[in-house]
């Protein structure tokens, strides 16, 4: 059994409910115990940093302090949370004066952060701790015949995790379920992120490029690791189709949902009813394989 402190992040309990549910659902069968970090707070992500730089560090650091006290690696399924927490940890490590001030603020809540916590993304844990071969070995329902585009988004692979131009971790995980990851050159390009709110037209253009690239390579659906990416690609597909007069019908699943399907878990447990673009077509394909 592998133990991890679990930091869901706000999205996993809100707009990314499917991620939150499916991540917990697959943990047990894969031999992971995700122990939710008690009293965790929003990491602040992009918005807080642009409001008050100093406060945003403390807000993120509170979670680091809580996580450090537990002693396990802190694992999050959200790319933005992962980057924010890692960024904060790095800043505290390199700027000792800042570290002192932050600990001063934390001490008001009886907390302190010494700098020894490892923050990792769930995909990193699945790819390197659990590993694709092990997952393949636990598959009960092979997803052969399912062609999907493995979409990393930008924050999963920048700036901390390895090869940004041609990453492989998600593709390997998809392959482990039996599904076929298509060649997808724009696999790690931006989906627009939070710009979907402030610069919608621009973000819709970026999302459309991703659909075009995935569809042209034969993808029947998109698999992603980040709740913001999933929301942008899933919830705004209708708007993209309307704006560009296109007819994309690409269900957008979380990697955890795909793995859950392969492990034979029920759809409700994986939050597949929360997806906007109905995954019905993909699911019926999968059911046929059983």
């Amino acid at each position, binding site marked *: 059994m592998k133990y991890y402190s679990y930091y869901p992040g706000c999205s996993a309990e809100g707009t990314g409910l499917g991620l939150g549910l499916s991540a917990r659902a697959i943990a047990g069968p894969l031999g992971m115990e995700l122990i939710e970090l008690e009293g965790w707070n929003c990491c602040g992500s992009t918005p807080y940093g642009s409001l008050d730089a100093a406060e945003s560090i403390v807000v993120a650091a509170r979670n680091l302090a809580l996580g450090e006290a537990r002693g396990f690696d802190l694992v999050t399924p959200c790319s933005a949370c992962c980057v924010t927490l890692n960024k904060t940890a790095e800043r505290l490590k390199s700027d000792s004066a800042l570290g002192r001030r932050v600990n001063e603020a934390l001490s008001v809540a009886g907390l302190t952060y010494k700098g020894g916590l490892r923050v990792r993304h769930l995909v990193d844990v699945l790819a390197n701790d659990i590993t694709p071969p092990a997952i393949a070995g636990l598959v009960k329902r092979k997803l052969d015949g399912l062609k999907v585009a493995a979409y990393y988004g930008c924050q999963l692979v920048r700036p901390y995790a390895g090869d940004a131009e041609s990453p492989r971790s998600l593709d390997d995980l998809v392959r482990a379920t039996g599904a076929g990851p298509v060649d997808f*050159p724009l696999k790690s390009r931006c989906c627009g992120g939070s710009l979907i709110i402030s610069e919608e037209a621009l973000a819709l253009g970026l999302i459309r*490029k991703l659909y075009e*690239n995935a569809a042209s390579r034969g993808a029947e659906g998109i698999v992603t690791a980040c709740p913001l990416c999933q929301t942008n690609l899933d919830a705004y597909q209708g708007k993209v189709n309307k704006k560009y007069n296109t007819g994309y019908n690409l269900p957008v699943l979380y990697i955890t949902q795909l793995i859950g399907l392969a492990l034979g878990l029920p759809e409700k447990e994986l939050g597949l009813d929360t997806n906007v673009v109905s995954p019905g077509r993909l699911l019926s394909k999968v059911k046929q394989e059983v």
Partner: protein
Amino acid sequence: MEPRIGVYVCHCGSNIAGVVDCPEVARFAQGLEAVVVARDYKFMCSEPGQELIKQDIRSHNLNRVVVASCSPTMHEPTFRRGCQEAGVNPYYFEMANIREHCSWVTGDKTAATVKARALVSAAVSRVYYHRPLENRQVSINPATLVLGGGIAGIQAALKIADAGHKVYLVEKEPSIGGHMSQLDKTFPTLDCSACILTPKMTLVGSHPNIELMSYSEISQVSGYTGNFNIKVRRKTRYIDESKCTGCGRCQELCPVSVPSEYEQGLGSRKAIYKPFPQAVPNKVAVDPESCRHLKGLAQGKDICRLCQRGIEKKGVPGCETGAIDFARQDELVEVEAGNIIVTTGFSLFDASAVFQYGYKRFDNVVTSLEFERIVNSSGPTGGHILLKNGAEPESIAIIHCVGSRDRHYHAYCSRVCCMYSMKFAHLIKEHTRARVYEFYIDIRSFGKGYEEFYNRLLEEGTTFIRGRPAEVTDVAETPEERGKLIVQFEDTLIGLQRRLPVDMVVLSAAIEAQPDAEAVARLLNISRGADGFFLEKHPKLEPVSTMTDGIFLAGCCQSPKDIPETVAQAAAAAAEVLSLISRGSVEIEAATAAVDPKICIGCQVCKTNCPYSAISFDDTRRVCQVNEALCKGCGVCAGGCPSDAVSLNHYTNEQILAQMEGALV
């Protein structure tokens, strides 16, 4: 004779005096035992500075001198010479480094002065115990070994050979010529590269003083300056070179085709081959990796040999001189030379490391050397600039600085790429009607005629875009982009992101050190810089020498450079060698080890550990002996000897202990 020591504390302008209180250090030195006179002065290495020492030697009868100034690697020879001229043995001189070891590494004046005093005190205590030593003279073997047969090696070899001295030119490929033989036209004159190179190659091939050892590599270097012993592995061509006429019949008969290294993989050669038609020596070689017969021999089979047999039923004869001989073996030859010039050249950066530019992922993305072969009339496309599918490109993008000026790969600038990129633009305009786009960061047209060449380019209608492209992609976003390679970039002069669809992309890739540079450096005992190139003795004043006496550098193995600079460096290295040859002898440092045979117990720990193989064991007397000519004075033997039988001249236990005690002032 009682030691009478003179101490001189140098200001070195403000380099030392800006941090160290030099007058104070001099005053302190005056109070040390056996110090007769102590002074401080602005520039000890200058004429007046040295005069100061000489005068004091005469008037105060000094017999020991300490100068506290810069590093001994800078001026120890200068001051030793000064002492010698004033009648004091140069080994009675000691330097205290209060610059690189003191004033240059701190801004704390108090701490620096304290340390300077300790360093001076250590030097004074040490010099008290110095002994007068004599440098030995060894004669120089007038033969020279030139390692690498590109234009640098060819030039250096010819200069020395023309002066009447023997040269061994060792080249690892089957032919000399190097990368210059692959080029089409050379900037800025647009001289045909082969036309200016091949006459020199021929001269080398026929020169009575040059022994050309082609298809050979060095495997061991021993000896010392003026007297090197080099083992050369002469790889077998599987032919009798005295019989091969270079007629090329065997090449036509051979059924095996493999990618040609000379053509950068764009064309092919046979298993028995000459790398290019104008090869010197004009002889073929059999490649054991691809030859069917040689591979068959390993399994006890006798197959093919079409090159030898010909095609009997068609009446086509094989080799008519019977030169092919599959039984031949590599040959190990020993060569003696007084000096070595390293001219091993460069390797081209592997552009597939820059994933975003699509090299090896997309058709029609080529490197600069590949493009040279494409545009060369003797190349794989006969000089026609063609896409992979045989069509003519209508637009070509040339991307500068691929792998250069880039903190992810090489920080340095490769110097020649701007010029050859522009040369490509000119040649493209000459050969085709294609539009040419140059993507640059800066235009470096520094040499004679180079800026004029750039201006000429501007008038020819090449488009220059200032901006290092973000990527080359095949993902089209508009109908015009379909089927093309799209360069995405920031046009920095107008501040806009743009996309440009083109048919072909040329990557001006960086010049790198050869992949075997580390092995060569170790063989020769020379250093490499952080960038991988061989290290010159001094970047400004000694660009072709190395820290190892008798070994010189020339050409791109030292740093990226164009042909005029390479030729100049090669001539400079040849001049260094000729100067030594005409002197006839060199001085060997006297700081060598000596074994006291009365104490030595014959355990041979020193012999086993000597990195220069300078110690031998005398079987009769059962003691070890040091060969002073080979000894480099590293001291490993002295440190390792369990009976304290080995002492190192100029680094005796007495001297070192005194130095340590003196430092604890």
